[in-house]
């Protein structure tokens, strides 16, 4: 392996908690096997300098020109791939998302590599990665060994255990992507400021137990108090109580936050399929038989209209 290209997020001058996992992985690769490997880090965030773990031979690029729509045209992807070395001896790494996936697959086709999907953990061996892949929406794992020259699509719950010791300040080079001319954008309905659900560290979810969309005030209040994103069950978005972009589960967004608080959600298997990557799950439901309690770290049997305001008041 001669190059690693990785996609990271930078929030307030620091790599996001997920991006830290990528940087730890790269540090591990440099320490254990390829000290001289050249690292290219790409971000869509606008930054000039960032504190990064000390890696050697590293360059950071801020890609400008996709942040208004969150979409990339083929020409734009090509210009990103052109920045990556032509050397086919490359490993490309990024968390699964609709934006990053477009680059990962294009890189795989261009450099004749394979995308290893849904990597949830990996171990370094001298000539391969020993991969654990999340399958069936987190209900099972699959094991395989792949070449170091691969494209790794990381599952939202991916972790690479190691602790970054020292950090150094890294300057960032701005790259202007060509204009996106393949489509005419007629309007953009931006998601409300706040945490992006798929990447949020904390999520408050609510279901049909809330009874009426007007009752989401307390959910939003709780979320804003702890800096969480809001999520909902499928029926709630189906009846337009909440936007579809909040729907988590088998047929919605898959989340892997540090903490998920589920309010008035029964815990159907299809809902669990979207949230089983959560580190800690707290369930609030007035039915002691609600299936969600079996999948909770902490639960409380009670009325959401009593419990949630009480939490908001005391947190």
């Amino acid at each position, binding site marked *: 392996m001669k190059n690693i290209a990785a996609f990271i997020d930078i929030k307030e001058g620091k790599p996001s908690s997920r991006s830290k996992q990528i940087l730890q992985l790269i540090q591990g690769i440099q320490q254990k096997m390829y000290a001289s490997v050249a690292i290219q880090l790409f971000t869509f965030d606008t930054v000039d300098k960032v504190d990064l773990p000390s890696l050697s031979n590293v360059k950071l690029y801020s890609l400008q020109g996709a942040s208004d729509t969150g979409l990339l045209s083929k020409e734009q992807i090509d210009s990103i791939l052109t920045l990556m070395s032509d050397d086919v001896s490359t490993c490309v790494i990024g968390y699964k998302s609709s934006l990053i996936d477009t680059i990962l697959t294009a890189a795989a086709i261009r450099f004749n590599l394979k995308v290893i999907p849904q990597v949830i953990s990996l171990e370094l061996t001298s000539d391969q990665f020993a991969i654990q892949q999340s399958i069936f929406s987190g209900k099972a794992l*699959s*094991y395989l060994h792949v070449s170091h020259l691969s494209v790794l699509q990381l599952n939202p719950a991916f972790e690479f255990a190691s602790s970054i010791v020292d950090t150094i300040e890294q300057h960032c080079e701005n790259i202007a992507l060509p204009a996106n001319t393949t489509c005419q954008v007629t309007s953009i309905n931006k998601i409300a400021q706040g945490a992006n659900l798929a990447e949020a560290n904390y999520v408050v979810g609510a279901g049909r137990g809330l009874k009426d969309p007007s009752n989401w005030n307390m959910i939003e209040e709780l979320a804003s108090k702890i800096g969480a994103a809001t999520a909902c069950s499928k029926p709630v978005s189906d009846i337009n109580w909440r936007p*579809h972009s909040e729907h988590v589960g088998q047929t919605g967004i898959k989340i892997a936050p540090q903490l998920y608080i589920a309010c008035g959600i029964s815990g159907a298997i299809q809902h669990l399929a979207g949230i089983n990557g959560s580190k800690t799950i707290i369930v609030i439901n007035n039915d002691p038989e609600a299936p969600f309690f079996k*999948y909770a770290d902490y639960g409380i049997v009670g009325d959401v209209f009593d419990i949630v305001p009480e939490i908001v008041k005391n947190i």
Partner: protein
Amino acid sequence: MPMKILVCISAVPDTTSKISLSSNNFVNMDGLTFITGPYEDYALSRAIEFKEANPESIEITIFHVGLEDAEPIIRKCLALGADSAVRVHTKANDSLQVANEIASYVKENSVDLILMGKESIDYNTGLVHLYTSNILGWNHYSPVMNLAIENDSCLLKVESSVGSVQLTSSLPLVLGCQEPIAEWKIPSMRGIMAARTKPILVREASAPNSFTYEKDAVNEQNRKGILFQRENLSELIDIIKKEVRS
């Protein structure tokens, strides 16, 4: 010439399936009920809405890479209103393999629009539509939440990292679909009868597998399962505080 829509479907265990292992240490598929991937159901439902509005000008082909046990699922898609189906006779092992099969069919047959689900629910990779667009050189959007066709263009609503984006893009296109693009449909008795005589063309496989899997494991979720009473709510609040601080 009618507009040709190819809807690519996966056959996956029902969403309520309990996953267990068989003696060879891979996920046991015996005894599970298979369904069309839920996202592909949305894609197909939208295609059928186009056809119902304009029966003469839309032709829908179902495309599936997999063995003959998927034929009941394919028949159900035909019963919903698709015109014909193509099945590539091989075990689908990975997204690149499936994409190569789709692309090789599309190169030999005229197709204007390829609809897929945002992702399958077995491997959840969301890569088949991307690989296909790269191999064919077609433009691609996913996840698509609204779709209308106007002449040679599609009007789309796409969920991106910044929000929902309305745009117009010209055909041919490869799209990964998700709700609320359409409502799931139930086949009618007439549709089921008509489907019996609709053709399912079986094609030879041409693309290789990418991976060799060693084994699977059931992902046991060991949750703490600690239950609080109302009078101990403050303890739960302390836990939330600690979680958010760490």
